[in-house]
């Protein structure tokens, strides 16, 4: 267990360092920090002096260490485009993205698991076939097309839901939330469905496959032979044993949700970090790009680490398997 934990932590540190290095290279070599700070008419001597003062002529390892130290404190310099501190720009927009991702993940779970259970229990019913067909379309259609389709139906056609923005948000000590206003909640519906649909189909397919697998096992037959009710068998025994992969996938997909929020945020003009990233790519705003990459890298690594640990905590067989291989 400890060895596993250490190995995982080590791997996470390697990934994080790689991401930091890429982010450092973007920041220093693709963009020119000096060019961004001074005007056109600054002389070469002045530029060189500034370069010296800022420590840009120091050896690369020293500069990398300084970059990491600053990054840990959330300092990524000023945006080339708006001249605002990048750290603040990201922190202001992060709540919008995280709320969207969490709601999308909940939507995918709450709708996807029952759909999967149903089509696992009744694989041949017509409704299961409809669900399967919908899931194929959900996997095939690009996210942005789904978003546009939802806007066409609910915003343009029926006019019941907003097609852009976050509605009114309430500021809770630096965290702006859209959960507390009616317009904020209404604005969340279409983007979170768009973002969560792919995960929903994924979860549905996994639960269905796992249910079909589990229902064939001996302990389910035995439970039936004991005369347990259908509900106790299906939910108490079968569903419970399908949840390990579901939790893993959901956890790992949370990172994907944050990354794919880039697309959803652009479709719905959602004021989150994803939209900020697209704008920074378009305008070659390197400080924002490198900060976003560092943030995403950190979130991915943390989430993957937590999911690994969670997996260990949920499935006792893994712990014993680990112990068995060590003694063997």
């Amino acid at each position, binding site marked *: 267990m400890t060895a596993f934990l250490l190995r995982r932590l080590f791997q996470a540190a390697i990934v994080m360092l790689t991401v930091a290095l890429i982010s450092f290279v973007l920041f220093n070599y*693709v963009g020119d920090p000096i060019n961004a700070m001074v005007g056109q008419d600054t002389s070469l001597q002045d530029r060189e002096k500034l370069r010296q003062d800022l420590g840009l002529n120091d050896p690369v390892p020293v500069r990398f260490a300084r970059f990491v130290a600053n990054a840990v404190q959330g300092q990524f310099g000023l945006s080339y485009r708006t001249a605002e501190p990048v750290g603040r720009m990201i922190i202001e927009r992060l709540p919008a993205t995280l709320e969207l991702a969490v709601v999308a993940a909940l939507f995918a779970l709450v709708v996807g698991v029952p759909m999967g259970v149903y089509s696992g229990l009744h694989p041949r019913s017509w409704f299961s076939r409809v669900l399967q067909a919908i899931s194929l379309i959900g996997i095939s259609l690009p996210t942005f097309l789904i978003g546009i389709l939802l806007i066409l139906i609910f915003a343009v056609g029926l006019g019941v839901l907003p097609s852009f923005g976050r509605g009114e948000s309430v500021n809770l000590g630096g965290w702006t939330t859209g959960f507390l206003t009616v317009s904020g909640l209404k604005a969340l519906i279409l983007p979170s469905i768009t973002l969560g649909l792919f995960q929903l189909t994924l979860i549905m397919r996994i639960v269905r496959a796992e249910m079909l697998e589990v229902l064939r096992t001996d302990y389910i037959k035995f439970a039936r032979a004991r005369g347990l009710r259908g509900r106790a068998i299906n939910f108490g025994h079968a569903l419970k044993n399908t949840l390990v992969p579901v939790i893993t996938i959901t956890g790992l997909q949370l990172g*994907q949700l944050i*990354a794919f929020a880039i697309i959803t945020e652009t*479709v719905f003009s959602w004021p989150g970090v994803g939209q900020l990233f697209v704008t920074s790519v378009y305008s070659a705003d390197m400080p924002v790009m490198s900060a976003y990459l560092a943030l995403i890298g950190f979130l991915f690594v943390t989430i993957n680490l937590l999911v690994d640990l969670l997996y260990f905590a949920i499935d006792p067989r893994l712990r014993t398997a680990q112990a068995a291989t060590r003694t063997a």
Partner: protein
Amino acid sequence: MALGPSFVRAWRDFASSDVFHSFRSSKVTVAAAIVTAIIFAACFAAPLIAIQNPYDPANFDLGVAMRPPVFFGGEWTFPLGTDDQGRDMYSAILYGTRLSLVVGFASVLLAMAIGVTIGLVSGYTGGALDAALMRTADVQLTFPAFLIALTLDGVVRGLIANKILPFDHDAIAVPVIVLSLGLAFWPQYARTVRGAVLVERTKDYVNAARIIGVRPWRILWRHILPNAMGPVLVIATINLAVAIITEATLSFLGVGMPKTQPSLGTLIQIGNDYLSSGDLWITVSPGIMLAVLVLAVNLLGDWLRDALNPKLR
């Protein structure tokens, strides 16, 4: 015709093979193949069957901008209507689909070339090089390919903005996006090929080849690679759909193909600004085209996966 009889025999062999049988027995797959074939043919013939060349600025005519398609009460001069620059949508969709397909195929080929080479080298040499290459693939696979392609596009824009690359972004949009996608998708191929090489390299035919003095590169290329190509082709087919979607997504976000040379994603983005005013056609027609294309390619990919490797099911 010296080729005649052997061609007929090859066709007869193919027609009686398992793969062809599983193809014919699935109606959905046949339908998907027909749809894909029609789209491919239409794209190849685009210059012949299009009304105008949508890349030629001379065809931009604001006088006929935003004309609705025939089924919305428009005229037959522009069967699918026009966009905000007065471009004929039918021609733009033909050329746009062709561009999406070209970019999709080119980036899949590039990813395949990079991935197969790295997989061969990694699996055959082993040791530190293998470890380094595979860890790189692991790190890259942690992140969505879409995010990597988007970042690479940003890097190129940064290099252009700082005059390190002496180009205009719009002029090199196609190579840039092919390169971004190729570099984003290589790890899957590398992993698969490396796995296959590890299995094959201990087999007798490889040892025999080595004993008679065949060079390593020739062993890899002529003897091991053909045995690893099945899964690679399956990945490539599924990858094609993903590449088309990713290209469309990047173009929709405004960082892929420019408006002067629109792909399907760019057309959808152009129309997106006019959705709320009720002028739906600029978005809807290329959207339907993209959805049909991706669905057909996906169905073919699923079928190929099942037909070539029943174990994967």
